[in-house]
Structure formats: structure tokens, C-alpha cells
């Protein structure tokens, strides 16, 4: 299922200017035509037959891809500024450059499928139905954040959207995803779990433990290696004997995908879901790139060249790829696309303004959610006699 312009939860806030929204709606709904588009490059398969390079899409889907990715890009850049203005504290990792992975995956799955990822989680959260206000509120530690302001950038969650979050310990989320997949299989759901991890995380032992479990029990678990080629400052070849992550499952099949091509990602995820439901786990390696540094304290330019970054921007940018497709198929004009970008900017600014109005969580929330309510757990204050509260 592609994110449709109307049902996509991003729009639940409806901050779009009505005229643009309606013009796009008009175009996309009344003239929604089906297109078949070749992926940028063929898939490379390990232990399985690669899916076809011809991807079916529609004009409205392409437009929604464009808009969603533009919105994400804008959101991440705004988060960068908020961080620099010290309105966001803690650790913050941005996803710009990698948008096609989140968006393409979402287009192939539904909200009963589960997604679990690491700390670079803002955009995945949006895809799973989160709103910009929840994003910015969480980033700024406010009550209206998706984790009530208690998690911060690395810990976004959305239960209704099957989004199991936002994990800080590299590699730890992968076995969790396998557990989710077991739950799905046991209750005979026609659904799968996508566990995302980085190329750096691919060297953690937990991945191999999880994969073995998933394969042994034929679980509908899809392991998605978002290979942005660096784990912090370490290039993949410095840390992996074989950076062909899609092959590292050995007995488990794998697929290498151009993660900058949203249609290829969609095709691969659709294929993976069908495969996993029938045959168990599969590794998808998404060849992608992060434009920002690893986190806000990393300028991102000491371990890679500026030419490398600008080269990817020029030749492989996921948004530009869709822009070209939209223009080539005459789906929208250049001006209309520019307008969408302007709208995205406005939508983000408005969400930030709203998020700033959100309250900080109540200090008593420090004690909540540690245990289930009412278990009588005590917290001790400095004065051991008086300040000895039973936690709510």
C-alpha cells in the first residue's frame, strides 16, 4: 500500500494550504494512471531469484513519494537548526539522504506489519503515521511528543502504527524484531516485521543470533541493513570483512537494493514480505547515504570527502530522482513541485510553532512508567526520613 495523499497520516494535521492540496488531489485522484518504471539498477540477489526491475506505480503514488520525502528532508533540516539553537537536547541523528528507504518500505506494507529501528528514527515514525507536531514536541522534550517528551530524538514509538521504535543500543533492536515476528506467526497474522539496522550494527553478534533464530523457526522477519556506508566515522570496509551485507545471512536469502530509489525499495519490500510469509527471513541491504554527520556533534566531513557527499547529492538523491520522474511523465510542473516544497517548509514551521507551545512534562512524570502503576515502589530523597514517596 502506498502512502496515499489523503489517508497518509502526515496530513492529519492538515496544515497544507487548501488550494494546493485540492489541485494535487484533483490531479492525483481523477487522473490517477498506472505507470511501470524501471529501477535505477537491477537488484542483486543472494540465494533467491531477484524481483523484476519493472515497478508498478501510479501518478498519485509518485506525487506522494515526492511530497513525503520533501517533508522529511525539511523536517530534518529544521531539527538541525533547533538543535543548534539548543532547543533540542540529548543526542540527535538525522535521516536526510535516506528518506527513500522509509518511504519505499511504507509503500509496500500496512500498519499491521511491524517496524523496529535504531536511533535514526524520525522519518520512520512519520511513515508509520506520526505527526510533525509529535516529532518536534518529542525532540524538544514536550508533553505532546510521541513518547510524552520522555524519550527524545532516539526514542520515537507509535503503537497504532506498528512502530516499535527507536532504540539506542546499536544492534539491540534486531532480536526484538524477531520476537515480534514470532508473535505474528503464532497468531497466524498475514504480517511481517522489518528490523532496521546500520552497516555498523551489522557487525554486532546479536544480528547473527537473531537471524539464526528467525531462520530456524521460519519467522516472517525481514532484516533491513540500511547501509549508509559509515558507522560513525568508520567506513564500512574498515569494519567489515565482507561489506556485502545482503550475503552475510549465508543460509538466509538476501537482496541488495538501491536504497536511493524509492521504487526499488518498494519493490524489494513487497517481495520480501511475500517471501518472508512463505519461507522465513530475508536480508535486504539498502544502499543509501546520510548527508548529515552521524549525530549533531559530527560535522560529517572528516572521514569522507565533500566531493563524495556532493556527488551523491547530484547523482543519487532520492527526491531528485522522483522529481525527474514526475517531470518526465508530465505528472506535475516544475512550479507545482516547487510549491509543494514551499508548503512543506510552511508545514514544518507551523508544527514547530505548535510544538513550542506544548508544555514540558510534569516533574512527577520522572517517576512514572518505571514500573506498572500502583506496585508501591519507593523512591528515596536526600532526607531518608521524609522524602520517601511511593511511585505513582
Amino acid at each position, binding site marked *: 500500500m502506498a502512502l496515499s495523499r489523503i489517508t497518509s497520516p502526515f496530513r492529519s494535521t492538515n496544515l497544507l494550504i487548501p488550494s494546493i492540496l485540492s489541485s494535487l488531489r484533483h490531479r492525483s485522484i481523477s487522473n490517477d494512471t498506472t505507470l511501470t518504471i524501471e529501477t535505477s539498477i537491477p537488484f542483486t540477489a543472494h540465494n533467491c531469484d531477484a524481483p523484476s526491475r519493472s515497478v508498478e506505480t501510479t501518478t498519485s503514488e509518485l506525487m506522494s513519494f515526492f511530497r513525503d520525502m520533501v517533508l522529511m528532508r525539511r523536517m530534518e533540516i529544521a531539527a538541525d537548526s533547533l538543535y543548534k539553537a539548543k532547543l533540542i*537536547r*540529548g*543526542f540527535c541523528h538525522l535521516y536526510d539522504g535516506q528518506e527513500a528507504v522509509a518511504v519505499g518500505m511504507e509503500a509496500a506494507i500496512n500498519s499491521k506489519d511491524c517496524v523496529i529501528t535504531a536511533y535514526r528514527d524520525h522519518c520512520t515514525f512519520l511513515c508509520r503515521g506520526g505527526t510533525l507536531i509529535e516529532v518536534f514536541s518529542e525532540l524538544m*522534550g514536550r508533553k505532546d511528543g510521541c513518547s510524552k*517528551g*520522555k*524519550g*527524545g530524538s*532516539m*526514542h520515537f514509538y507509535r503503537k497504532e502504527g506498528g512502530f516499535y521504535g527507536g532504540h*539506542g*543500543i*546499536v*544492534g539491540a533492536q534486531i532480536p526484538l524484531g524477531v520476537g515480534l515476528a514470532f508473535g505474528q506467526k503464532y497468531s497466524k497474522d498475514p504480517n511481517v516485521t522489518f528490523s532496521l539496522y546500520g552497516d*555498523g*550494527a551489522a*557487525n*554486532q*553478534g*546479536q544480528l547473527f543470533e537473531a537471524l539464526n533464530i528467525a531462520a530456524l523457526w521460519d519467522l516472517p522477519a525481514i532484516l533491513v541493513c540500511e547501509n549508509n556506508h559509515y*558507522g*560513525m*566515522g*568508520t567506513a564500512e570496509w*574498515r*569494519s*567489515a570483512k565482507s561489506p556485502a551485507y545482503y550475503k552475510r545471512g549465508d543460509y538466509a536469502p538476501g537482496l541488495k537494493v538501491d536504497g536511493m530509489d524509492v521504487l526499488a525499495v518498494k519493490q524489494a519490500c513487497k517481495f520480501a514480505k511475500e517471501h518472508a510469509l512463505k519461507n522465513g527471513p530475508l536480508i535486504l541491504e539498502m544502499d543509501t547515504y546520510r548527508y548529515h554527520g552521524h549525530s549533531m556533534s559530527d560535522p560529517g566531513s*572528516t*572521514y569522507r570527502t565533500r566531493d563524495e557527499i556532493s556527488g551523491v547529492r547530484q547523482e543519487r538523491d532520492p527526491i531528485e530522482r522522483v522529481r525527474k520522474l514526475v517531470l518526465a511523465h508530465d505528472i506535475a510542473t516544475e512550479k507545482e513541485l516547487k510549491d509543494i516544497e514551499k508548503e512543506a517548509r510552511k508545514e514544518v514551521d507551523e508544527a514547530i510553532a505548535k510544538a513550542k507551545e506544548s508544555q*514540558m*512534562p510534569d*516533574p512527577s*512524570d*520522572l*517517576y512514572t512508567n*518505571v514500573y506498572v502503576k500502583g506496585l508501591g*515502589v*519507593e*523512591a*528515596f*530523597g*536526600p*532526607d*531518608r*526520613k521524609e522524602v520517601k514517596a511511593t511511585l505513582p
Partner: protein
Amino acid sequence: MSSCVKRFGRSCASLVSKRGLSTSCIQKDAAVVAENGVKSLNLYSAINQALHIALDTDPRAYVFGEDVGFGGVFRCTTGLADRFGRSRVFNTPLCEQGIVGFGIGLAAMGNRAIAEIQFADYIFPAFDQIVNEAAKFRYRSGNQFNCGGLTIRTPYGAVGHGGHYHSQSPEAFFCHVPGIKVVIPRSPKQAKGLLLSCIRDPNPIVFFEPKWLYRLAVEDVPEDDYMLPLSEAEVIRQGCDITLVGWGAQLSIMEQACLDAEKEGISCELIDLKTLIPWDKETVEASVKKTGRLLISHEAPVTGGFGAEISASIIERCFSRLEAPVARVCGLDTPFPLVFEPFYMPTKNKILDAIKSTVNY
């Protein structure tokens, strides 16, 4: 000697933040300084110097960990790879369990394996290797094998806004493991001397570095190769009404509480434990026998924290001398919070309150 003390006094004055380490003023072993060069260094540079010396003085010493070849996230390993080569200073893949397990093997061959775990919050994947392999290797092999050359360096503690996974103080978990030592320095000079002792000690050691002080704490550090003794606590401030025990970054907070208490006429004795296991009970005992009161403070949650162990031991040894229950001012029993960090922390005022209520018990 007096001029040295003055010099330390000046370096104290240059400390900026509330986390500045004024306790470093009270160095009494400043004599070393007079003959040899000293340099005003922050804590990460002092660690860096210690690592240079360790590699320089022992050709079988190695430094490895995530990104250490580039200097590491906190710059502690800057310049090491250039100076000693990539076969002695190298990046590992992102795999803590593998890093420590590898270090144990390397140490078992008679080498000094100096492993870095990027943040103490990420040491848990390696917990099994530390607890079950490193700590028991000597014992279970009847002393045929050991990994005494292993030192695991890892930054711990709050930084103001680190959130759940860049702030924790997991020292107490490791204090429950006979066979390893746990050491935490409070200042640059201490860090250098203690780290060199750890690296050369014939037991596996987890060395927690107070990351809040990496840049903030600046102190005159002797340039030469010196070691500070392990398992020896230090009275860094003399007093007669109450004994305060702490370690690492928390000492500077406690020091401020001592100064405030002094204004109210309470004389506090402050002890830096430095080595958590095996710890120097005698120094603490002697002090509590003098003051009759004890307060322990650490950032880790109060329940099951190392403060509990100190409290229990001192009650055993000083029961009849105690004039008030032992006070603990620690982190709260919650996960380390992001937005609530100021509430969670054992702040100066919390300590001051506890000093007063203990003294007035």
C-alpha cells in the same frame, strides 16, 4: 612546596563550571612537580598522555576500540595511531562483546590490552565477557592463565543532557564481581596516575572516566611517568563533623556542599575512594570513627548502588561510633532521564540538606 600549592591554587581559580574540580587544589603530593615539568591539562589530555606513556614504555601494550584510531569520540586516543602505528592502535568493528573478549585473549598472551568502550552505557553487551571470562580466568584455571593485562576504559556519568544512553553510571554492577578492579579518577592528574597504575596492574580493571570532566577539569599534571596507588582512598578535605565519601565527577559537587556547610559551621571531611573494588575500608573507617557520621553520594541509582556496600561495611565496623544513620545522596531509582536530569541528580543542595539532617539527627 608552598609555591607548588600556590600554583595549584591558581589552576583552581581557572575552573569555570560548577563541575570544576576544586578538590584538585588539595593535592599534597605536589613535590613530584617541582623537579619535573608540569603542564596544565584537561582530563582527556591527561588520559591521552597516560596512554602515550603506556605504549611508549611497554612494546606489548595495545589500544583498541571503536574509532580509537581516529582519536575516539572524546579525543582521548588522539595521535596514538600516528605515533605507535596501526598495529598497536586500531579501530575495532562495532561489537563490544567481541572487543572485550578479544582483549582477554590478547592479555592472556602476556600483553597489555587497553580496550575502549565508547560509552559506559554500551558496556553491557560485554558484560558477560567481563563477569564470566575476565574476572574468573585466573581463579578457575588455578592461576595457570589470567588476563591481568586487560584494562577497559570507558566514559561514564551525566553530561547535562545526555539522556538515557549517554549518561549512566554502571560501576556498581562491576563491584559485584570478585576478580576485577573498578577505578574512577576525579581529576586530570589523578586520571593519568591511576590509569597508568591500572594498565600495569596484574588484574583486569574497568576504568571509568568522568566524561563531564573531560574538558572542564583542568589541572597541573606532571609530564613524567608516575603512578598513583590503587585501593588507597584519599582524604581530600579534612573535617570533624561528618565524613563524605564519593568518587569521580561527584566529588566536585560534594566539595561545593562541604564549602556551603562550612559557612553554616559544619566541618566536613571528604574522601575520594578512587578504587571501588577492592576498596580502602580503613581510610573511611578511620574518618568515620573521628566524625561519627557518614554520607555517601553517587550518580547511580541509590538502590543497589555502591553506596549501599560502603554503608553496610561501615556500620559493621563503626556501629557504636555512629551518631546518625548513614546518609546516601544518589541518583533516583529511575532510568537516567533526558528532560528530568536536574531532578534526578544528587545535586549540591540535596547533599547539603542531607549533611544538615545527619549532623542534626
